[in-house]
């Protein structure tokens, strides 16, 4: 292709105009506040980014806008009262927060819940996972401009929430777990209904796959964006689907001995080798399918029997320390509970929440990315503000 003289002149003029602009306007950089009220932050996370043109040169997340001090509050409560607090950590799957704490408390009390209680716990745990991740699957589309998926997500999550409400009495904050068992048994007909809803969940996963995974915009905005190498991710303490998307085959449900019923089921842990935003989405999609599979199996194998162990009426909790962690929808959630042997509550309750570690990688991962990708990466890491700020 030959370049004509007018074209050449136009090019030179364009270059000159741009140079003049650079000289007149200061384009060295600007500081941009993302949040604390930004739709992509699911709450009040503020990220201060320093921009050079469209690229981020430096990012500093600032959390704590919703810090409630649960570690301190847990120290002035009894074990049974703490579940109310921890319900509010990751509010999309509250029951999953209760389980590890209650397991830690049971370890200190030296009681064990009967098998039926453990199965129902596992069952509701997986339902919490579905309720949580379906929202992510839909909401990821919104960040890229696709409005439809999120409505599907809200629609199908509602079925799951209705079931959780039917069993526990609370849609979001079940407060259903007790030291030594559960508050109540499942209502009549619940199991059959749950299995019907699981078919809907699977259908929802297929819909998401149809709507988003093949979509060119979706793929281009997600593939190769926000790549986290496994070693870096592990150093930052990323867990759950975020680290499995980087090729680390680690799932606490499978790898750690637990009293819960995962070991009795047949399911698979999915990993992806890419480590980018797309991989994180894909892993979570498969995880939802596996969760539906798990719920089906748990419904089938539900043992009969009591749901509450015999608890001494007045009990001093023996001195000791317990660390229990589980694979929550957002990643590893653990409680390090110390008992001083007194009749009061935990002496120290360290809450290890997944999102706090998951977003601590932001300063590293946002360096050099374009502004629109900040939103994609933020969403694909998937955090809940309550899980960061505790």
């Amino acid at each position, binding site marked *: 292709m030959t370049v004509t003289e007018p074209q050449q002149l136009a090019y030179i003029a364009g270059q000159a105009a741009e140079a003049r602009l650079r000289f007149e306007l200061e384009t060295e950089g600007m500081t941009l506040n993302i949040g604390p009220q930004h739709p992509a932050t699911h709450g009040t996370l503020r990220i201060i980014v320093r921009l050079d043109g469209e690229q981020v040169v430096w990012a500093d997340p600032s*959390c704590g806008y919703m810090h409630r001090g649960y*570690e301190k509050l847990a120290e002035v409560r009894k074990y049974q009262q703490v579940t109310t607090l921890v319900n509010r950590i990751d509010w999309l799957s509250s029951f999953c927060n209760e389980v590890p704490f209650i397991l830690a408390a049971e370890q200190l009390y030296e009681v064990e819940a009967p098998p039926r209680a453990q199965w129902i716990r596992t069952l509701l745990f997986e339902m919490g996972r579905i309720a949580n991740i379906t929202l992510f699957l839909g909401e990821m589309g919104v960040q890229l401009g696709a409005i439809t998926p999120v409505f599907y997500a809200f629609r199908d999550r509602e079925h799951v929430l209705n079931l959780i409400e039917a069993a526990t009495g609370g849609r979001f904050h079940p407060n259903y777990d007790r030291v030594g068992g559960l508050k109540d048994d499942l209502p009549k007909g619940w199991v059959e209904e749950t299995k019907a809803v699981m078919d809907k969940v699977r259908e929802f996963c297929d819909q998401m796959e149809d709507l988003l995974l093949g979509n060119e915009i979706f793929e281009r905005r997600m593939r190769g964006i926000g790549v986290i190498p496994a070693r870096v991710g592990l150093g930052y303490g990323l867990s759950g689907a975020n680290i499995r998307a980087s090729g680390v085959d*680690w799932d606490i449900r499978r*790898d750690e001995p637990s*009293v819960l019923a995962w070991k009795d089921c047949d399911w698979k842990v999915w990993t992806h080798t890419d480590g980018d935003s797309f991989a994180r989405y894909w892993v979570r999609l498969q995880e939802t399918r596996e969760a539906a599979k798990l719920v089906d199996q748990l419904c089938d194998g539900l043992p009969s029997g009591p749901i509450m162990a015999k608890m001494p009426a*007045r009990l001093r909790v023996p001195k000791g*320390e317990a660390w229990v962690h589980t694979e929550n929808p957002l990643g590893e959630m653990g409680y390090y509970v110390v008992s001083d042997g007194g009749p009061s509550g935990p002496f120290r309750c360290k809450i290890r929440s997944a999102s706090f570690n998951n977003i601590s990688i932001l300063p590293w991962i946002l360096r050099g990315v374009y502004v629109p990708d900040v939103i994609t990466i933020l969403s694909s890491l998937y955090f809940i503000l309550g899980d960061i700020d505790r």
Partner: protein
Amino acid sequence: MSDAPTDDQTEDAAPPPPDPEREELVAALRRDLGDWLIEHVNANGDLWVRVDRKAWLKAGEVLREKHGFDYFCFLSGIDWLNNAELVQRYEQVWDPDAEAAGDGAADEGPYVGGRVAGGDTRFQVFARVYNVQRKLGITLKADLDDANPSVDSWVTVYRGADWHEREAWEMYGFEFAGHPGLRHIYLPVEFEGFPLRKDFALLARVVKPWPGLVDKEPVPGEDEEEGAEEAAPA
């Protein structure tokens, strides 16, 4: 959990069940750290190791570089100060019989804690790291000086330690030598005091004692209803 020792975790606890993999790890750590490894507890399928605070950074490096503990779980602290006022309040309203029978938690000197790989000093820093290949976790602990709780930063070993050390700094007042910027992460910049220390009073409880144990306040509406009921037959 099922094989948890059934004693009441007193000083003469039963010997933990043998766990060759973890024992081997402790032996390897002991080769590197020598006397700095003070004690360890290997029970319930978990491992606690208490090291000297001088060896804190070295222990992290050894675990990550030599033993493949890549995954940083958390870092935090404990204040073992006996919050006598709090304990006493619970004793009074909750369990006076057990207090008369002895084994009270309140009469064991200034520090309550130190039961499981616990500490000799008031403050302890503890952190947990994990080996995702061998599916092995370890909790490291170190005693800190009462007056000057300071320890080496782990940021050079685990990048994730950055935020956790900022949290421990603002919550407990621990100093982390070598940390690039200890500043507030949760609390406002002008916040004073260290909230998770036991001598930091929880304001809500000072103003009004916890009503959950013995609810002495009349429930609003109750009196009126009773009055209404009494009035109705009369």
